[in-house]
Structures are given as C-alpha cells and as structure tokens.
C-alpha cells in the first residue's frame, strides 16, 4: 500500500515515461488529465493520513495546502489544455511529435513542483524548483517561432543564474547548520534547522539568505529580477502561462518562505521582513505602471502576476497573524483567478487568431460567454468585491494601516494604479465594436467557471476549517 505522499510523486513520474512513449495525441491528452486527476486525489488524501516527517520529506500544514492547490490547478489546467491543443494542431502551430513532449514535460513539471513542496531537505527543494523550471523552459520554446525561442532563451539564462545563486545560498545554509547539527542529511533537514536556528551563526545565515532571496526571487518574478516573466508568459502555450503564473511562482515563493522561517527563529539575523516589504512594494508599483503600456493581452496579465506576487511578498514581509493570513489567502486566490483568466485568454486568442489587444474587440457581442468569463476574472483580479481577492487585499490593507500607515499608502496607491490600468485596457476588448473572426469556441468552459466560482465562494464565505487551518499556518510563518 503506497501512501498518498508517495503517490503525488510517483504518479507524475510514471506519467512522464508513459506519455513520452504514447504517439497518439488524443490518448496523450486523456492520460494527462487522468494522471493529473489522480495526483489531485492523492493530494486531497494527504488530509486524512497522519502528518509525516523524515530527513528528506515532510508534510505539515503549510505545504499540504499548497500541494492541494497545486494539484488542483494542474488538474483543471490539464482539462483546459486538452481542448486547447486540438486547435493548435489544426492551425499547425504544434505537431503530434511535439505534443508528446509537451504532455511528458507537463507531468515532469507537476512532479517536480510536488517534490519541491514536500521536500524537507533543502537540497531536494532546490532540485524540485530547478527541474520544474527546466521543463517550463522547454515548453515556452515549443512553438519554435523566433519570439518563442528568444523568450525561452531569456527565461533559461535568467532562471539558471537565479537558480545558481539559490544553490550557493543553500550551500551556505548547510555550512551554518552542520556546525550545530553535525555533518550529513540531518544538517539539510528544514524542520531540524528551525529548531536549532537560535544556535546558528547569524552573519553567515544572513549572507545565505541574500543569495536565496535573489535566486528564488528571480523565479518569483520580483522586480528587478522579473525580466524573463512577461516574455515567457506571452510566447509559450497558454496552459503553460496558466501554470507558470498560478503555480510555479507560488512554489518559488514557498521556497523563500521556508528559509524565512529559519531566519525568523534567530533574532540576531538581518531583518528579512523589511527586505521583503521593500521588494514587494517595488514589484507592485512598478508592475502597476507597466500595465498601462501593454499591447499584448498575455503580457498584460503577466505584468499583473508580477503585481500580485509583489502584494503577496509584501504581506509575508509584514508578518504577524493577520498579514500572513492575508498573504496565504491571496496566494490561493491569485492562483485560481489568474489561471482562470489565462483559460479565457487562451480561448480568445484562438478564436481571434491574435494576442494583440488592439485586434481583440467587442467580445460581449461576438462571444458573450467568454466575455462574461473574462469580465468576471478581471473584476476578481482587480480586487473588487465580492470576490476572494478583495477579501485578502482588504485584510492586508487594513492590517498594514494599523501598523505602518505609510507603507499602506504605497500599497493602496499601487492597487489603484493597477486597477485603473486593467479596466482601461480591457474596456475595448469587452465592449468595443466587434471585430475580427467570430468563429465558434470549441472548448470547455468548466475549468474557467469552476475557478471563478471558488474565488467567489471564498469572497462570500470561507469555511470554518479553512480559516482555522490558515490561522495555524499564519502562526507558523511568524
């Protein structure tokens, strides 16, 4: 009997091999959905089995919720992807051979993200993030157009530099830990490090964190390390944009937060919270202004992802029960909403045959259902009630007003600027004169509206167990 913990790692690993061998793209797409669905079920099953720890793997409140979120979005995205790739084959942008690699890489990415999430060993955590990155690099370049190749190249170079610096940081953390915990695996185990952290050398630990912050921060897409992100989002297949924004950025931030917890337990180290607050606000304000000049719909939402990662980083930087709670909720809401938006955008780009904002007009008359989906997604991501993003942003703004009014002013300013940009850019898309092809959408709307319904529900009513759980994690984050 294999435990759910093994299942979330084994199912994607097996699926990679099987999908790489199967030639038919239809069977491939179905198997991809099946594997993702099974992984999601195994992720949910983690709730009922007892918590687990070894020097290599760990299951605690913090990662269990991210595993469920990740596997859920991966599952719905695989459903979206199945209806998306049919169209790509028809238009000849992808060939069946490439689809085999696409499906195998998709599972490799999910498996790697799960590895990163459940890793207790900080080296394994690094391996997970790195493999997930490499598999998305390949998928970003899969269209092989000049723009896609350049986007993938840029993503690869910047991602590798980030990952290299993160690895140097990991080595430094190990060096610090082995002085106290002794050589070997236990000196890389995260939970033992947290316990022993007060005895660590604060200077070396602080230096390590700087490398980790720049390294994993590049993967989170924090300004000024964000240059790869808009290109990678706009040139790859849309399902990949959805999982990049919705999941991979989260996983990178999760890695950073694990190290933040280690440093928080040692009062003599540098003030991690302050650095994260500054980086978060820079990303938020910068991305909010960049939103105004976008002409490509996927780049627009890529900048919106930078903005939201900025908000989340700010929230965790502030710390404390309320801000951490807001950060966790915002992480969840952003994942669900942004992937829903990318589902809608993927269908729109397919029916209109373009990603240029100027060429997409009047969706409400030509494709009313898609227009409703996109409009709801934009309302949600702009932070309007009654959606869940509003709840988390409201909590964050009110808690920071109570503690640091000046920071809250900057936060609110960024939010308003971004709000204006989104409304301005998308007005024509939704309500302008209808133009361009008005073909039928051969796609499933289930993932899109399922995500939006969840975000709406979170805005209206958060179930009591979820609240209790987020509180526990927020307390753990300190």
């Amino acid at each position, binding site marked *: 009997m294999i435990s759910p913990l093994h299942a979330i790692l084994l199912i994607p690993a097996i699926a990679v091999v099987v999908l790489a061998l199967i030639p038919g793209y239809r069977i491939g797409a179905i198997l991809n959905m099946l594997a993702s669905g099974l992984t999601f079920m195994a992720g949910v099953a983690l709730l009922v089995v007892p918590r687990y720890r070894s020097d290599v793997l760990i299951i605690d409140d913090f990662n269990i919720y991210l595993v469920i979120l990740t596997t859920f979005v991966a599952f719905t995205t695989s459903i979206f992807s199945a209806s998306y790739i049919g169209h790509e084959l028809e238009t000849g942008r992808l060939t069946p051979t490439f689809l085999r690699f696409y499906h195998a890489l998709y599972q490799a990415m999910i498996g790697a993200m799960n590895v990163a999430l459940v890793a207790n*060993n900080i*080296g*394994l955590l*690094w*391996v997970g993030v*790195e*493999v997930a990155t*490499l598999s998305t*690099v*390949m998928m970003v*370049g899969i269209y*092989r157009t*000049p*723009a896609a*190749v*350049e*986007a*993938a*190249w*840029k993503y*690869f*170079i910047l991602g*590798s*530099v980030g990952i*290299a*610096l993160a*690895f*140097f940081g*990991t*080595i*430094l953390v*190990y*060096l*610090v830990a*082995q*002085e106290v915990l002794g*050589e*070997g*695996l236990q*000196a*890389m185990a995260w939970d033992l490090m947290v316990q022993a952290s007060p005895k660590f*050398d604060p*200077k*070396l630990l*602080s*230096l390590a964190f700087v490398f980790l912050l720049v390294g994993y921060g590049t993967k989170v897409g924090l300004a000024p390390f964000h240059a790869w992100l*808009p*290109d990678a989002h*706009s*040139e790859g297949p849309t399902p990949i944009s959805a999982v990049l924004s919705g999941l991979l950025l989260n996983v990178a931030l999760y890695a950073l937060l694990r190290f933040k917890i280690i440093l928080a337990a040692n009062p003599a180290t540098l003030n991690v919270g302050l650095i994260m607050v500054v980086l978060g606000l820079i990303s938020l304000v910068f991305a909010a202004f960049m939103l105004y*000049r*976008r*002409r*490509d719909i996927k*780049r627009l939402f890529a900048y919106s992802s930078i903005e939201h990662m900025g908000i989340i980083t700010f929230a965790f930087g502030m710390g404390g029960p309320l801000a951490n709670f807001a950060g966790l909720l915002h992480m969840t809401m952003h994942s669900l909403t942004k992937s829903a938006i990318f589902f809608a955008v993927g269908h729109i780009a397919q029916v209109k045959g373009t990603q*240029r904002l100027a060429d997409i007009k009047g969706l409400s008359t030509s494709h009313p259902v898609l227009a409703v989906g996109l409009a709801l997604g934009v309302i949600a991501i702009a932070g309007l009630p009654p959606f869940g993003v509003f709840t988390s942003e409201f909590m964050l703004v009110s808690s920071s007003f109570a503690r640091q009014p000046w920071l809250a002013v900057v936060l609110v300013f960024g939010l308003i600027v971004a709000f204006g940009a989104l409304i301005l850019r998308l007005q024509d898309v939704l309500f302008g004169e209808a133009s361009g092809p008005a073909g039928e959408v051969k796609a499933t709307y289930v993932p899109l509206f399922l995500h939006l319904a969840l975000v709406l529900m979170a805005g209206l009513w958060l179930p009591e167990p979820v609240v209790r759980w987020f509180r526990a994690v927020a307390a753990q984050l300190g």
Partner: protein
Amino acid sequence: MTQSFGFDVAHLLAGSMLVLSFVLLYQDRITAVLNVFALQAIALSLSVAWQALIQDSPHLLVTAGIALVVKGIVIPTALHRIVRRLGIHREIEDVISAGPTMLTGLGLVALSILLVMPVGETVSVLVREDLAFALAVILLGLLMMITRRNAVTQIVGFMSLENGLVLAATGAKGMPLVVEFSVAFSILIAFIVFGVFVFRIRERFDTVDVSALDQFRGERGERG
C-alpha cells in the same frame, strides 16, 4: 602529510580555477574559450579529488570523475563539433572591451573576499577561503555571460559558473552526495537544453549571435 600541505594544495587548485576564469574573460576566439573551459573543468576535478582525500570522503571522487569526463572532455568536444559545423571560428565581439572587463572581474573577486571572509567565524579558515574562491568563480561566470553576446560563449560562461558551484559544494564538509549528484546531473540537463536551443537558433537565424534575436523580442518594435 601535514595539515598545512593539504591546505596549500587546496588553495593552489582553487586559485588556478580562479585564474582560468580570468583567462576565459579575455579570450576572443571561440575555440580558445572552449579549451580554457576544459582546462578549468580539469582543475575542478583535481580540486574535488583533493578534497576527497583531505576530507577522507571517497564519494567525492565520483563528483571529480563526473567533472573530468563530462565537463573536461565530453562537453568541450561536442561544443567544438557544433562550432565547426556552424562555421564560427571567427572572433567574438565583446560588449565591453577586455580592459574594463578585467577590472570589473578584479572588483568582483575583492567583493567576494569581503563578503565571505569576515562572516562565519564558526567555520574553518579553509572552508571560508574555498567559499571565497568559489563565489569569485561564480561571479566571474556571471560576468562572462553578461559581456558575451554569442550563444556558445554564454553557455561556457554558465558552465564556468556551475564549476564554481561544485567547488563550493565540495568545500562544504560532508555535504550529502545527493546534492553533488544532482549538480552533475543538472549540468547534463543544462547541456541538453542548451544543445536544443543552439540548434534551433541556428535553424532559424543562421547565426548564434544572441543579439540577432533582439529584434524579435516583444519589448522592441511593438511595445509589449
């Protein structure tokens, strides 16, 4: 064998890697860059093997072997072949000239010494100095990636950066094998990825000069 002798040899080998990083910076022919990189990989494998000896941890010999075979022989040979097939034995343009690049490199070495040496009184001097060397190699690799515009030399810059990482990882006493293996493995993956990309870039543009790609990026011409 005295303690200080082990110390000196470790320094010599790590120092020679650093010197080779500098040599990489000012090479202006691709074939020369590849040869220097192979030399650096051999220096790395010697350094790792020495660490295996003085730390009495034979599993590091595996890492040394991987560095020697893969990075010292296989990858340079393959890149030589690619370069020959692409017909680019010509000079490579630096973005900034050799003088300022070398000065920046010196600055980076000073920076890494200043960063690593004062902190961590708890770890031994050998480990600390190894770390300073490793960080300098990493930063010089980064510098090389920034100053070069050619895809192949950017690859070499990246792999030289990874050499620094392996040096750091093996300098940290008793770091589990899992990690070293993964580093070696990631280099392999990196090479495959890079190979694919170089191939595609060649296929699409008839050049491996990355600046030729710039006109296609979303930021220019049509503002994203």
